[in-house]
Structures are given as structure tokens and as C-alpha cells.
């Protein structure tokens, strides 16, 4: 399928982004303003999956494995695009006796 320049322009100028957030293998859709912050998206994602306990340990990651670590950054500044998928996960997973 060919995408025209108009369609690309329209997509980039859209105010509301349709994103997918994946948590433990379960995808959920979120509509959010492109000017919202990463923090807002993170909070909404955590609420969407049932107000997960210990929310401060979770963050959003791109499919390419980049953590959206600047929570005050807007989604536009974070280069998120329509249709992007994000993963809600802890930054570190570890364990052990000591």
C-alpha cells in the first residue's frame, strides 16, 4: 500500500495519538494528546492495567528497547507516533539470596 505525502502530513499533525501499551503480554489501546507528558501516559497505563502496586518501579519502553526515562518530556518530544506500541515493565529484574 502506498502512503501519500498528504497522509503522512495528516498523521504527523494529528493531536491525539492512538498508542498500544503492552503489559505482561496483554495489549491495551490508549488515546492521548501528543502534548501530554510521558508521566501522564505512564500514569494512565498503570491505571489501565488495574492500578498496579509499586508503580514507581515501572516505566515505559519502546519496542526497540529504549526507556522513556524523562517523565516531563512530551510524547511529541519523545518522538512517539500514531500506532506506536510501548511496553510497561520494570527497569530492572533481579533476585537472589544476597
Amino acid at each position, binding site marked *: 500500500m502506498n502512503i501519500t505525502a498528504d497522509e503522512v502530513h495528516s498523521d504527523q499533525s494529528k493531536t491525539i495519538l492512538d498508542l498500544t501499551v503492552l503489559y505482561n*503480554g496483554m495489549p491495551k489501546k490508549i488515546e492521548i494528546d501528543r502534548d501530554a507528558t510521558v508521566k501522564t501516559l505512564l500514569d494512565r497505563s498503570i491505571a489501565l492495567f488495574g492500578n498496579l*502496586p509499586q508503580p514507581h*518501579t*515501572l516505566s515505559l519502553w519502546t519496542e526497540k*528497547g529504549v526507556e522513556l526515562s524523562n517523565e516531563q518530556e512530551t510524547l511529541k518530544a519523545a518522538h512517539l507516533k500514531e500506532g506506536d506500541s510501548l511496553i510497561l*515493565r520494570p527497569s*530492572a529484574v533481579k*533476585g*537472589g*539470596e544476597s
Partner: protein
Amino acid sequence: MRYRVPAALLSETFDRFRHCGGARRECQVLWTSEWTHPATISGVVHPQHLAHAGGFELDSAWINDFLLELGRAGHGIRVQVHTHPNEAFHSATDDDYPIIHSAGFLSLVIPDFATGPVGFDRAYLSEITHDGTWREVPPQSRLEIVT
């Protein structure tokens, strides 16, 4: 929820621990199941990780790829299982760094680097509560070994 754990997957779990850990290092596996049939454990996944005698840490890039794969497959992680060198208990590190943070998520610790008999003898099972703390639960109350 009480999960049905096929005996073959429990045996595979111990085999992984013994092969990877060599009775010298801790190791972890993840038990998964389909979202359409969550109560039946159907997969044992051995993460890429660093490990030493007293702990382990999963590779961050592996976590990302694996969570994407779970989404494609329609599966979820139900139980994280790992070894300790001696006694099984839930350490502060175990409490603070699980892979899943949902209430009801289970963490099973196997003693003696899993060199003992296959099963839940002296194993320690913890569950995340709604306030994010962990509480010990009897393994038989949440895990049923099925043949």
C-alpha cells in the same frame, strides 16, 4: 488463582536450574500460560541473565524482546521461579525487583540450587498483595502438580 503445573514442566525447571547454575550460581525461569487459559502453565522460559552464587539479574534487552513475544503469542507470566544456595525465602531483592507487579503474581524460591528432589519440599512461595507487599502462601494453595 491456583495454577496447574504439568509435572514435566516442573522437571524441566529443575533441569534448567541444575544445568545453568551448576550448583554454584542462582538461576531463574518464568512459568507462562495463555491468556485464554491462564490457570494451566504451558511454558518454561529461561531468561538471559547474569548470575552468581547469591543472585541474578535479567538482561534488559532480553526482557523487552520477551515481553513483545508474549504479546504476539497471547501469553503471560504467572510465576517467577528461582534458586537460592541454601534456604528458600524471599529476600529484599526478590521483593523489590520482580518481572511482574500485579496483585496475585507468584514468586517461587527453590532451595539448595535445586539439587534436591523435584518438587516443592522446603520451597518458599510468595504472592504480591494489592498494596504491593509480598506474603508467604503455601505452595499447594496456589500450585497443583498435574501429570
